[in-house]
C-alpha cells in the first residue's frame, strides 16, 4: 500500500511540475527574440484546451494510431517512477532498472513510429524513418553513458548511479563526469526533439522529425503526446541535474531548492541553445550523435585507465 502511495505522489509531482519547464524554455526563446512571449503557464493552458477538444481521425488509421499516445504517456510515467527527484527517492529502484527504463522507452517508440506509418502519409513516413535512424544512434550514446556511470558507481540502478547515493564526487571523477555530462546533454536534446537535432516548433518543413510524426494527432491524443513530451524532458533533466550538482546539505528544503534551481538552469540553457543555434543539417545530426557516443566512450576509457 505504502509503495502505491509513494508512486502516486511521485507521479503527482511529475505531472504538476513538468509542463512548467517547457514554459520556461519558450519564455527564454521569446526573450531572445525580443518578444514578451506567452506566460510560463502556457503549456498548462494548451493541455487543458486539448483535453476539452474532440479528436479527428483519418480513414486510413487503425487502433495503433490511438494506442500510441496512451502507450507513450504510460511509458514516460513508468520511467519517471524510476528516477529520483531531488530529495524524493525513486519509488521503484532495483538492480537493472536502467534496462527497464531504456526498453520501456523503446516500447513507446515502436508505437510512435508505427502510428506515424499508420496514417499512410509520406510526411509522417519520413519522420518515422528519421526517428528510427536517430534513435539507434541516441540509444548507442545513452547506453554508453549508462555503462560509464554504472562502471563508476558499480551499480545498474538509476537511483544509485545518480544523486544521493553517488559514491564519488567531482573531485575524484571529474574528467569522467565531465565527459558524461557533455554526452548526456546531447542525448537529452535528441530524445526530446530539441534544436540542434530537431525543431519542436514547426512541422511543415521537410526537415523535422518528432513534430511531423504527430501531425495527424489531435484533441486528447495530441494532449497525451504533448504531456508525454513535457514529462520526458522533465525526467531526463532530473537524471542530469544530480550528476552535475551532487550537493547534499542534509536539509530537505535546501536540497529540493538546489534541485529545482538546477532544473531551472538546465531549461534556461536549453532555451539559450535553441535561440542562438540553428538546426543542424540532417546529414550532420548523426555526426553529433556519434560525438555524444564518443564522449561517453572516452569517459569509460578514462575510468578504465584510472583503475
Amino acid at each position: 500500500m505504502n509503495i502505491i502511495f509513494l508512486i502516486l505522489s511521485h507521479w503527482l509531482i511529475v505531472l504538476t511540475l513538468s509542463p512548467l519547464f517547457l514554459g520556461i524554455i519558450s519564455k527564454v526563446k521569446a526573450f531572445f527574440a525580443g518578444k514578451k512571449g506567452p506566460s510560463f503557464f502556457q503549456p498548462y493552458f494548451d493541455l487543458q484546451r486539448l483535453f476539452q477538444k474532440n479528436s479527428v481521425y483519418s480513414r486510413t488509421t487503425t487502433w495503433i494510431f490511438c494506442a500510441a499516445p496512451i502507450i507513450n504517456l504510460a511509458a514516460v510515467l513508468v520511467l519517471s517512477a524510476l528516477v529520483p527527484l531531488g530529495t524524493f527517492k525513486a519509488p521503484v529502484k532495483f538492480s537493472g532498472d536502467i534496462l527497464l527504463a531504456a526498453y520501456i522507452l523503446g516500447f513507446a517508440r515502436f508505437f510512435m513510429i508505427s502510428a506515424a506509418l499508420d496514417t499512410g502519409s509520406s510526411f509522417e513516413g519520413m519522420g518515422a524513418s528519421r526517428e528510427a535512424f536517430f534513435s539507434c544512434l541516441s540509444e548507442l550514446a545513452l547506453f554508453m553513458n549508462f555503462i560509464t556511470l554504472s562502471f563508476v558507481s558499480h551499480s545498474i540502478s538509476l537511483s544509485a548511479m545518480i544523486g544521493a547515493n553517488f559514491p564519488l564526487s567531482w573531485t575524484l571523477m571529474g574528467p569522467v563526469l565531465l565527459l558524461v555530462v557533455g554526452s548526456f546533454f546531447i542525448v537529452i536534446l535528441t530524445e526530446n526533439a530539441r534544436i540542434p537535432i530537431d525543431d519542436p516548433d514547426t512541422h511543415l518543413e521537410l526537415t523535422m522529425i518528432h513534430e511531423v510524426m504527430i501531425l495527424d494527432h489531435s484533441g486528447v491524443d495530441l494532449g497525451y503526446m504533448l504531456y508525454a513530451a513535457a514529462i520526458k524532458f522533465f525526467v531526463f533533466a532530473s537524471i542530469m541535474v544530480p550528476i552535475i550538482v551532487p550537493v547534499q546539505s542534509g536539509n530537505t528544503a535546501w536540497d529540493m531548492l538546489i534541485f529545482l534551481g538546477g532544473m531551472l538552469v538546465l531549461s534556461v540553457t536549453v532555451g539559450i541553445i535553441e535561440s542562438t543555434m540553428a538546426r543542424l543539417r540532417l546529414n550532420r545530426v548523426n555526426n553529433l550523435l556519434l560525438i555524444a557516443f564518443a564522449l561517453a566512450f572516452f569517459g569509460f576509457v578514462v575510468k578504465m585507465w584510472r583503475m
Partner: protein
Amino acid sequence: MKRFWRHFKSRNQERQELYKEGRFFNMLESFQWPWHVPFGEFALKLDSLSLIFLTAVTILVLCAGVYAVGYMRQYRTTKSMGLHIFFYFLLSTALVLIVLANNVILFLGAWEMMSISTYFLIVFNDEKSSVRRAGFLYLIMSHCGTFLLILMFFLMAHNAGSMNFEIISHSSFPVAFAGSILLLAIIGFGIKAGFVPVHIWLPHAHPAAPTHISAILSGVAIKMGIYGICRVLWIIGVLPDWCGYLILIIGVVCGLMGVLYALGQHELKKLLAYHSIENIGIISLGLGVGLLGQSHHMPFLSVLGFGGALLHVLNHAIFKGLLFMGAGCVIQRTHTSDMDLMGGLARTMPLVSILFLVGALAICGLPLFNGFISEFIIYFGLFQGLFHLPLQGAFTCAVGIISLALMGALALACFTKVYGTVFLGEPRHLQEPPSTGKISLLMIIPMLVLGGLCLWIGLFPQIMANAAFQGGAYLSHTDLASLPMGTIFYPLSLVISGVFLFFALVLALVGIRRKLLQGHAQPVRETWGCGFFQMTPKIQYTSSSFALLIVDFVKGILFFRREGGDVKGKFPAKTSMSSSVHDASEEFLFKPLFARLTSFSKKLDMNRIRYTQIYLMYIFLYLIFLLVWKLK
C-alpha cells in the same frame, strides 16, 4: 516395444516423485537400447541442457504441424503430400534424437537424418529453379559442416577412448587440443547455426521453403547448431581463455550484421531469415559471457550467461515461429512476399496483424513479451562481467552491452518497418490482389498458442527462467543451490512488476481518454496531406525508403546496389529505380571461392578417362586386391 513401454512407465513414476520433491530439473534420465552398429549404442539421455532444446523442438514441431494442415491446403490439388509428410515426421524424429543422443554415432546419424530430410522439405516447390538452387546450397553447406563435425567428434572420441558423451566428458583434454576442438565445433556447427560468414545458405533456404518449414528451420533446426556447441562446451569443460572472447565477438558480429542485412531486405521471409542470424548472435553473446565466467572462475556469471542464452533459444523458437507463420498468412493473402507492394493488411486481417505485432514486439526484446526476459538476463550478466572481470574482460563486456543495445534499436527500426509497411497505411499495390486466399482457423490456432506463450514467459518467467538457469548450471558444471540466484530473480520480479505497472497505467489512460472524449463527435477524414487531396498510395514510404537512412549510413559494410532512378532532362520520362542489399560474404567470399573450385574441378574433368569399361576394371582389380589382402 513392450520393454520400452515398461521402462517408460517406471521412469514416469520416478519423475512424478521427483517433481514432487522439486528436483525434477536436476534429474538425469538415461535410456539404453542394444544397437548393432559398430561403436554405436542407442543411448539417450535427458538432462537439463537438452530439456530446454527439447521443449523448443516439441512446441514448434507441434504448432508448425497444425499450421501446415491449414497452409498446405492450397497445394492439395496440385501436389502429392505423402513425401512431404513423411519427411516432416522424419525431421521431427531427427530433431528429438539429436538433443537426446548420448552417443557420437547416434548423434551423427540423427544429424544426417535432419540435414537430408530438411533438404527434401525445402525443395517442396521444386518447379522453381530458385528453390532447387537454395536446396542444393543448403545440402552442400550442411555436408561441409558435417565433415568437420565427424572429424571433431572422432578426435574427441579417440582421445577419450569411447563414443559415449558421458564417458568422453569425464576424460581430460590438453588445453590446446580443447581449443582446436572448439574451433572445429564453431565452424562445423556454426554452418548450421548461421554464424557470419558461413550463413549464406540461410537467407536462401528460408524463403524457398514452405512457411511451416521455414518456421522449423529458423526456430529449431538452426538451434541444433547452438545445441551442438553447448554439448561440446559441456563435454570439454575446461577451455582456454580466448574461447570466451571468440564466441562473444562472433555473437557481436553475427548480431549486428544479421540485423543490418535484415534492414536492407524487402522480401518478408528473407528479412526474417536474417533476423535469425541476429538472434543466433544474441545467443552466442550469452554463451560468450558464460564462457568468460567459466574461465575466470565466476560460476554466477557463467550461469547468467548460459542461462540467458538458453532462455533466448526457447524464446526465439517461439516468437520466430510466430512471425514466420504470420508471414505465411500474409503471403497467402497477397500472393507476393515483396513488402513494397503490401500495406493496410491490419484492416483486412486484424487477428493476424495483432499476433504478428506480438511477435514483432517480442523479437525487439521489448517488455511485456518473452524476448525482454532473456535479453535482460544476458544484459545482467554482461554488467556483472563489467564490474568483476579484469580489464580486457570488462572492456569486452562493455562492447557486448553496446552491441546488444544497438541490435535492439536496429531490430526496432526493422520491425517497425515490417509492421508499418505490411499491416499499416494503404495498400501500395494499386490493383486488387487476384484472389483473396482464405486463412483457415488451423493456421490461426498455433499462432494464438505461440503468442500466448510469448506473453506467458514475458509476464511469468519464473518457471522457464529457472529451467534455463538449471541448464546453465549444468553446462558450467556448477550447483545452482550454491549460487546467489536471488540476485537475478529479485530484479526479474521487479521488472515484471514494472511491466504490470505500465499495463495498469495504460488501462487507466484508456479510461481517462474515454471519459474525456465522451459526448464529443469523432469525425473521420482523410489523412492530412498539407492541402493536397487524392494522393496515390504509392507516395507512401516503402520498406526500402524507410530503411534507406540506416542502410546508407552503413553502406561501407553492406553491399548496397542501386540501379536507375535518375531524373534526366526538363521533362523526365517515366523511369524506374531498384535498390537491393547483397550479402558481402556471399559476393566477396563464397562466389569467388566457388568459382575457383568449379574451374579447378573442370580442369580435373579434362583428365578424365571416358570409358565405363576401364572403371569396371578398376573395381574388379580393387576387389581382387581386397581378397588377396584378406587371404594373407
